[in-house]
């Protein structure tokens, strides 16, 4: 087995709260270094409440050709880990060993001189990355071609768009051919074709480098990582196969939510920043209500109360969606004169509340709502985005189901999906009610954490039901519509 290119041995990183404490600690360390050649010990005990461990006891190796994915919630310590591996910080406990040349795809647009041209910046940034003049001369044209900057390469980079700058930064960085590559998300640089070039280049680098990839995208992690490290508040809680790590991630999230809801019941208050609380559903009681013909009434439990209806309880619309999605999902709407008490419940095949989303399983979304006045024509839609803000699909009523006019009162409707077909990852549904041409309600629902794809091997966002055939049942195509 090859020697690890990255080794973390009991590594930890401590931070101080407040800049005064940070500067005092640093001054003490520097004083010790200046007089004795070694860092001075902290003057106060570590558990004085002013310091905390951002990372603790990390142990892992990454070998050549291996990709270690790092996942965890915000504040788990992913970025700190990446900064330590990149040499931007030193660990306060244990050690990190890096063998070979490092390169990082973290801040691509940084480190450029804005007054210089793109060509000059290849040399300027390349010099800072440690490349020799001869190497940069040799690679200059390749970098220009890769970045697709054409004649703009001789324009000052301050005139570049952010995309052009990122492309140039990516090109200069990846041509380093590093032994250790550190990535904060797979970068969406440029248009689709350029992204494919980037991914190809990263895949090439994977063959010869040890890669650490930090990502919130579970599909990205399963696609790229060989092993995954799950961090929770600086502590490693799982290191193993991607599928198992992602399941552990969702289990962790679920247990946190349960804890949050228990706490909320004990305190009688809504916990902050907890969006989905499966264990808290029992807390909501709904009266009987009228149903659409052929529909069963919604059980007297709700899985989720749309965030827009919870504004008074500390949850804002902005908190309901990840930052990347806010811009693409659109405005949140709640016309309380028209509609209220919107409740959603995912059900499994047996009609039981759904515990886990699995790509191959059937799922039913039961939607209940109270109309404050009769509506002439109501249409419901459930568009779905993934964590990279890709619009995956939408479950719309138009052309499929006509609810007709509805009177004031409580109503319920079911959306039946024979097979979700979604690959592993987190998906963000939005529930929208439209009366004629006007939205009367539009709000994000509980994120769907799909923990198992429809098939063991999968690509892209969805896996449709398909099979391959050969032999007699697959005749040779003679008159094809499209030939390459």
């Amino acid at each position, binding site marked *: 087995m090859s020697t690890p290119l990255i080794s973390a041995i009991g590594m930890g990183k401590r931070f101080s709260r407040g800049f005064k404490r940070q500067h005092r600690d*640093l001054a003490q360390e520097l004083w010790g*270094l200046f007089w004795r050649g070694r860092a001075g010990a902290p003057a106060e005990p570590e558990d004085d409440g002013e310091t905390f461990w951002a990372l603790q006891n990390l142990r892992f190796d990454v070998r050549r050709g291996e990709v270690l994915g790092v996942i965890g919630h915000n504040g788990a310590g992913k970025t700190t880990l990446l900064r330590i591996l990149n040499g931007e910080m030193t660990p306060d406990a244990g050690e990190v060993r890096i063998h070979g040349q490092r390169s990082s795809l973290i801040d691509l647009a940084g480190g450029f001189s804005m007054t210089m041209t793109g060509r000059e910046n290849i040399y300027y940034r390349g010099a*800072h990355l440690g490349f020799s003049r001869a190497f940069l001369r040799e690679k200059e044209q390749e970098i220009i071609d890769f970045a697709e900057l054409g004649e703009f390469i001789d324009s000052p980079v301050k005139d570049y768009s952010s995309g052009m700058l990122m492309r140039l930064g990516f090109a200069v960085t990846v041509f380093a051919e590093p032994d250790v590559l550190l990535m904060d998300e797979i970068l969406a640089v440029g248009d689709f074709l350029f992204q494919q070039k980037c991914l190809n280049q990263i895949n090439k680098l994977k063959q010869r480098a040890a890669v650490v990839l930090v990502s919130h995208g579970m599909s990205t992690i399963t696609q790229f990582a060989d092993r995954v490290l799950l961090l929770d508040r600086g502590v490693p809680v799982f290191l193993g196969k991607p599928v198992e790590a992602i399941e552990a991630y969702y289990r962790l999230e679920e247990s946190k939510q349960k804890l949050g809801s228990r706490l909320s019941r004990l305190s009688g208050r809504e916990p902050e920043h907890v969006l989905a609380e499966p264990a808290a559903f029992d807390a909501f009681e709904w009266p009987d209500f009228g149903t659409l013909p052929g529909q069963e009434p919604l059980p007297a439990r709700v899985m989720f109360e749309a965030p827009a209806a919870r504004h008074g309880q500390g949850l804002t619309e902005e908190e309901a969606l990840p930052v990347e999605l806010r811009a693409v999902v659109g405005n949140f709407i709640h016309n309380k004169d028209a509609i209220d008490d919107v409740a959603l419940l995912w059900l499994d095949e047996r009609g039981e509340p759904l515990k886990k989303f699995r790509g191959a399983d059937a799922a039913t979304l039961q939607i209940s709502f109270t109309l404050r006045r009769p509506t002439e024509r109501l249409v419901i839609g459930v568009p779905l985005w993934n964590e990279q803000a890709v619009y995956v699909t939408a479950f719309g009523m138009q052309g499929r189901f006509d609810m007709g006019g509805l009177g004031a009162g409580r109503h319920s409707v079911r959306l039946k999906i024979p097979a979700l077909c979604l690959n592993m990852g987190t998906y963000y549904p939005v529930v929208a009610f439209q009366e004629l041409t006007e939205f009367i309600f539009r709000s994000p629902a509980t994120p769907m954490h799909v923990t198992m794809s429809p098939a063991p091997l999968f690509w892209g966002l969805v896996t449709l039901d398909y099979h391959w055939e050969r032999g007699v049942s697959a005749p040779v195509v003679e008159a094809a519509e499209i030939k390459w």
Partner: protein
Amino acid sequence: MSVLREQLAGLWAYRWQIWVDVTKDLLSDSRETAGRFFWVVAMPLVPLGVYLFLAKLRVFAAHDAMEGVVYVVVGATLWLLFTSLFLAPLNAIRSKGKTARQSRYPLAAVVASAVGGAWIEFLVRLVLCGVVLGFTQWPSPLGVVLFLAAVIPLSFVFLGAGMIVGVFAVASKDLAKLTPIAIQYLFFLSNVLFAIPADRIPQWLIWANPFAFAIDTSRWVLMFGVFPDLAGFLAMVVAGVLLMWKGLHFLGLAEPRLASHL
């Protein structure tokens, strides 16, 4: 010693990158101007031009041994060099340290490029000094030979001390603010524009100031070809070498610790 060896090896390995940084810093400000290289040369001469103008107006007291203009122009040139070298590590670490650490570019190389820029500006000013001396008071031929041999080892004092202060200034923002202010006040105690009469300020205050000693010594060497206080000069050279060694060593030791504070 291994830290120091690593620092020196790093500086040698990054020599081309340091040169790229030096030229970038010199040229980038004048990039979009019509007289590009004119500004590269003219900008370092602006402060010197002001002092030259004031000296011609005889604002400052005359000096017995040399023309007032010579005293001021050479003094100001040396002051600008020594203070640039002293402040170069502090300014370079503050302005470029973070970017450098992100790409693992050594801080010693960042400092070296700032020092390179200071020396280029000094050489430009030296040309103006030569013109002024040519028209007013010719220096001693031996002094011309000895001048750089005196200035270079004396500059080690300021660069070495500057590296130490620059590192501590990362931990103490007050130090980072106070240092340039202190330098501005030292200007009037450093015999740059005029020799302070002994009856006004205690002379030990002048001679305890390394800027005053270095400027007076270098100026005297240039004009008359002799060291006014050879023992003092040698002591300062030894102190300079030690400070350079300590500063470079300290910078190397502290660099990983500074990373998260830059």
